[in-house]
C-alpha cells in the first residue's frame, strides 16, 4: 500500500482540480493544490527507502485457475529511482510552470499529475500483466489530455497515431507474456525467459512515444515545454523501466536488436547534436538515450538501463523545462552532462558494466554525441521567458524547479539503489567523456557539427510521413480487397460462394476425422 500513497498525492489533487474546474473555474489556488500534491508525492516516495524491497499485491483475479498471475507492484532500488525521477519531474514542471503564459493551466496540470501517478505505478509493476494495465492507463490519460487540448485535424490525428503506436508496444509485451505459457507458465520481471526478452525490447521501442516525431501542438504552443515534457518523458521512462527490472537473457535475436539499437543511438545522437534547439531535438534525445538504455539492457546491465532512463527524464527534463535566459542556471544545467558521462559515482556509472562486445565503439560514439549535444543545448537555451516581470514567489519557484532535477541526478549517483556509488567501466567512461569534449570543441570549428538547417530537420519528418503514406496506401489496397470479398459474399451470388466454402470445409473436416 505504501507504493500507492505517493501516487495518491498526485491523483487526488488531479481529481480536486477537475472538480475545481467544474465548480469554480476562476479559483486561484489550483496551482497550489497541484504543486502541494506533487511535493508531498516527491517526499513520500522517499518513505519507500525505509522498507525496500516490498510488494503490494492486489486482490487476486478470479477464477484463480485461469489467472495465475496476480496484479502486483514491487518497490525495489530500480523502481524507487525511476519513481523518484518521475515525481521530481512532475514537481519541477509545476514549479517552472509558474512563469508560463498558458491559458489552459489546469488542464495541463491535471494531465501532468495523472501521467506522473500512472508512470510511477508503471515503473513499480512486477509482471507483464500489471505493466500492461499501467501502460494502458497511461495511454488513456495521454490520449485524453492530448485530444482535449489539440486544436486541428492534423494534431488530433497525431494524438491518435501516438496512441496506436503505444498500443502496438503493449501488444508486444502481452504477446511476450502469452508465449511464455506455451512453455509452462507466465513470468515476472525477476525471471524473464529468453523467448520473451526480444518482444520486451520491441515493446519498449514502440512505446517510447517517438512516433509521431512531433507532439500534437503547434510550434508556438506553451504546452510544448511544460506539459509536452511530461507527455514525452514520463511515457518513455514508464516503458524503459521494464528493461531495468530484470536481466534479459541473450537469445538469437539479441545481436540484431543490439545492431538496431546501435544505429538508433547513433542516429539519435547525431540529430540531437545538430538540432537547432532543444525542443526540436527532443525526439532525438529520446531516441538516443533510449537506445543507449536498450544497449545497456542487452549487454546484461539492467540497472544501467534504468540509469539511462533516469538520465533521460532528469537531465532532459531540466533542459527542456528551462525557458529563461539566466547565465547561472545555464551553467548549472551542465550538471546533466556529468549524469550522462558514466564516470564513477555519476548517475550512469553502472551503464556499461555488462558486455558490449562488437557494439562497444557504437555505444561510445553515441554517448559522446548525446553528451556533446546536451552541453551545446545547455549553453544556448532557446526559451524567451523572463523572470523580471514575475511575482516574487514565481521568481523563487522557477529556479527551484530546475535545481530540484539537478539535485536528484546527483543524489541518485550516491544513494538508494544498486547503481549508486558505482565505479563503472573505467575504459569506456573517460573515453566517451573525452570524445564528447572533443565534439564540443569541434562544434565551434567544423560546419558539419553545427545545427542542421530547418529543411534538414523536416526531411526526417517527411521520411516518416512517406512511410505513413505507404502504410495508408497498403491499407486502402487491402480495404478494396476486403470490399470485393464482402460484396461477393453479400451479393446475389453470395449463397453460391457460401455453399462452395461449406463443401470445402465439410470435405476437410470429414477427411480429418477419417
Amino acid at each position, binding site marked *: 500500500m505504501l507504493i500507492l500513497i505517493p501516487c495518491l498525492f498526485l491523483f487526488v489533487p488531479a481529481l480536486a482540480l477537475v472538480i475545481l474546474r467544474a465548480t469554480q473555474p476562476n479559483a486561484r489556488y489550483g496551482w497550489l493544490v497541484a504543486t502541494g500534491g506533487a511535493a508531498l508525492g516527491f517526499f513520500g516516495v522517499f518513505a519507500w527507502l525505509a522498507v525496500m524491497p516490498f510488494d503490494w499485491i492486489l486482490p487476486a483475479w478470479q477464477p484463480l485457475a*485461469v489467472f495465475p498471475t496476480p496484479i502486483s507492484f514491487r518497490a525495489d532500488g530500480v523502481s524507487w529511482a525511476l519513481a523518484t525521477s518521475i515525481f521530481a519531474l512532475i514537481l519541477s514542471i509545476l514549479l517552472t510552470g509558474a512563469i508560463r503564459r498558458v491559458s489552459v493551466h489546469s488542464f495541463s496540470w491535471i494531465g501532468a499529475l495523472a501521467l506522473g501517478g500512472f508512470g510511477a505505478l508503471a515503473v513499480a509493476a512486477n509482471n507483464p500483466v500489471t505493466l500492461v494495465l499501467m501502460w*494502458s492507463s497511461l495511454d488513456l490519460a495521454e490520449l485524453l489530455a492530448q485530444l482535449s487540448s489539440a486544436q486541428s485535424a492534423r494534431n488530433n*490525428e497525431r494524438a491518435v497515431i501516438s496512441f496506436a503506436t503505444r498500443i502496438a508496444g503493449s501488444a508486444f509485451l502481452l504477446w511476450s507474456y502469452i508465449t511464455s*505459457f506455451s512453455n509452462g507458465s507466465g513470468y515476472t520481471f525477476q525471471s524473464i525467459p529468453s523467448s520473451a526478452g526480444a518482444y520486451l525490447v520491441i515493446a519498449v521501442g514502440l512505446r517510447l512515444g517517438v512516433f509521431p516525431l512531433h507532439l500534437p501542438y503547434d510550434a508556438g504552443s506553451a504546452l510544448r515545454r511544460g506539459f509536452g515534457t511530461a507527455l514525452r518523458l514520463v511515457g518513455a521512462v514508464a516503458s524503459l523501466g521494464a528493461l531495468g527490472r530484470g536481466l534479459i537473457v541473450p537469445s538469437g535475436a539479441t545481436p540484431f536488436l543490439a545492431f538496431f539499437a546501435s544505429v538508433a543511438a547513433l542516429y539519435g545522437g547525431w540529430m540531437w547534436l545538430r538540432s537547432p534547439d532543444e525542443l526540436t531535438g527532443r525526439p532525438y534525445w529520446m531516441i538516443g538515450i533510449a537506445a543507449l538504455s536498450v544497449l545497456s539492457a542487452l549487454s546484461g546491465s539492467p540497472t544501467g538501463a534504468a540509469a539511462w532512463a533516469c538520465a533521460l527524464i532528469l537531465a532532459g527534463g531540466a533542459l527542456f523545462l528551462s525557458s529563461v535566459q539566466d547565465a547561472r542556471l545555464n551553467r548549472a544545467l551542465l550538471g546533466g552532462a556529468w549524469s550522462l558521462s558514466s564516470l564513477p559515482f555519476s548517475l550512469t556509472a553502472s551503464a556499461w558494466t555488462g558486455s558490449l562486445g562488437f557494439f562497444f565503439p557504437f555505444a561510445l560514439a553515441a554517448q559522446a554525441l548525446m553528451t556533446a549535444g546536451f552541453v551545446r543545448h545547455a549553453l544556448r537555451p532557446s526559451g524567451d521567458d523572463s523572470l523580471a516581470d514575475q511575482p516574487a514567489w514565481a521568481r523563487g519557484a522557477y529556479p527551484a524547479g530546475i535545481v530540484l532535477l539537478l539535485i536528484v541526478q546527483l543524489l541518485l549517483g550516491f544513494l538508494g539503489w544498486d547503481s549508486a556509488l558505482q565505479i563503472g567501466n573505467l575504459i569506456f567512461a573517460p573515453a566517451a567523456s573525452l570524445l564528447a569534449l572533443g565534439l564540443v570543441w569541434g562544434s565551434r570549428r567544423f560546419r558539419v557539427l553545427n545545427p542542421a538547417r530547418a529543411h534538414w530537420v523536416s526531411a526526417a519528418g517527411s521520411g516518416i510521413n512517406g512511410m505513413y503514406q505507404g502504410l495508408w496506401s497498403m491499407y486502402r489496397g487491402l*480495404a478494396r480487397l*476486403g470490399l470485393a470479398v*464482402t460484396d461477393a459474399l*453479400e451479393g446475389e451470388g453470395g449463397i453460391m460462394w457460401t455453399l462452395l466454402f*461449406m463443401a470445402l470445409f465439410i470435405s476437410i473436416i470429414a477427411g480429418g*476425422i477419417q
Partner: protein
Amino acid sequence: MSAPIIWIALPFIAGTLILFLLGDKYASQIGGAIAAILSLIALFIPIDAAMLIGSVSFKISPAIQVFGRAFEFTSADGPLLAAIFGISAIWFFGADAAGMAHRFVSLGLMIVSLLTASIAVEPFLYAALLLEVAAMLVVPLLVPLHQKPGRGVARFLVYQTFAMPFILFSGWMLAGVEANPGDLRTALQSGVTLSLGFAFLFAVFPLYSWIPQLMDESTPYAVGFLLWALPVFTVIFALGFLDRYVWLKNTSQIADAILYAGVIMTVTGGLLCALQRHLGRIFGYAAIAETGLFLIALGLRTPNLLDIAFLALLPRGLELSLWALALSIIKRKAYRLKLSDVQGLARVYPVATGALIIAHLSMAGFPLLAGFPSRLALWQALSAQSLSAALWAFLGLSGLLVAALRSLASFVMADAPPRWELNETRRQAAMLGIGAFGLFLIGLFPQVLQPFLSSLPALFEHIAQ
C-alpha cells in the same frame, strides 16, 4: 410457483401485455424492471429449496410438464438466469434512450423467454425448435411495420432455419452412435451434420454475411440485441451438447475443428472489421470476431473451458448494449453511419462517441476493460495448446483494434473543430456512463463475475470433469 413459469411464462406474458397495452412512455421502464426483478429473484432465491420469510414458507419448484415435455431448472441455473435477465434489463432500460422502446421491449421479453426455455427443455434437442421460434420473433423486431424485409433479414431467417433440421437429425444419429460406438461411419455423419447445424447457428465463416447486411438495413440497437442473445444461448446449447455427448469433446479432430472454425471466424471478422468504413458494419464484424472467440473457447482442451467461455460471454451483453446505444444516438446525427459522416462528432456527442470507443476497445481486448480478462485467459490456455492458433486469434483482435482507432480518428478529426458541447440527453448520458463504468469495473476486477461463474461446473458437470 414453478421456476419455468417465473422465468419463461411470466416474461412472455409480460412482453405480450406490453405490446398490446402499453405505449412508448413506460415500456422501457416496466420491461426493464420486470427483467431486473426476475434477475434478482434468480440470484437470491434458490430453486427447489424451502424458504421461510416470517411465518410464510415457500419453495420454487424446479419443473413443469407441457405436452409431455419437461421444462426444468436446477438450483445451479440460478446465477445463469440472473445474468441473462440482468443483461436483458440493461437492454430494456437502454431502449428508451435508443429511441425504440415499445416493440423492442415487448418482443425482447418474448425472445428472452423463448431462449430461456431452450435451456430448460427436456429432451434438450427441442432447444433447436425454440431457437428457431425465437429467430422468427426477431424478424418483426428488425423490420418496421409495413416495410419490406431486406436481404439481410431473409438470409438470417434462412440460415437459422437451415440449422434446425441439421441439429435435430444429428441428435437422432448421435443416439445411434451411443448405442453402437463402433459404427464410425455413423459417427462421422453425425459429426458433420452437427457441425453444419452449429455452423449455421453460430454464423461461422462464410455464413455470417447476414450480420453486416442487417447492420446496413436495420436499427443498430435491435441488431445488437440479436447479436447478444442468439450467440449466447447457442453457446449454452452447444455446451449442453458437449456435456451430453462427452466423446464429441474428447475426439481431438472435432475439438480441433471447433477451435479452428473459431480462429477463422475471429481472423476474418477482425480483418474485415479493420477494413470497413461504416460504423454499423464495424459493429457487426466485431460481434462476429467475438463469437469466434466463443468457438475457440469451446474447442479448448482444458478443464477451465467453462470459466473461460463464460468470462467472455457475460461482458458481451454490456459491451454490445453500450455500443448499440451509442450507435443509435450517433445515427440520429449521421444517419448513414459512414466514417466520413462522423468526422468531428467527438466534440458534439462526446459521451456517445467515447462510450462507443470504450465498448469497441473492450471487445478488442484492450487492457483495463471488461474484454481483457477473458481474452487473457483464452490466450493463456490457447498458447499452451497451439501457439500458432493463439497468434491468429491475436491478429484477429488486432483487426478490431485497428477499426477502433480508425473510428476514433474519424470522431476527433475535423478541419474546423466545433466547440465541445454535450448534446446527449441526461438519460442517454447516464446510461452510457453507467455502461462504460461497468466495463472498467469488470476489466479491473473480473472477480465481480465470480458469483455467476462459481456454479457453472454444476450445470455442465461432464465438461467440468
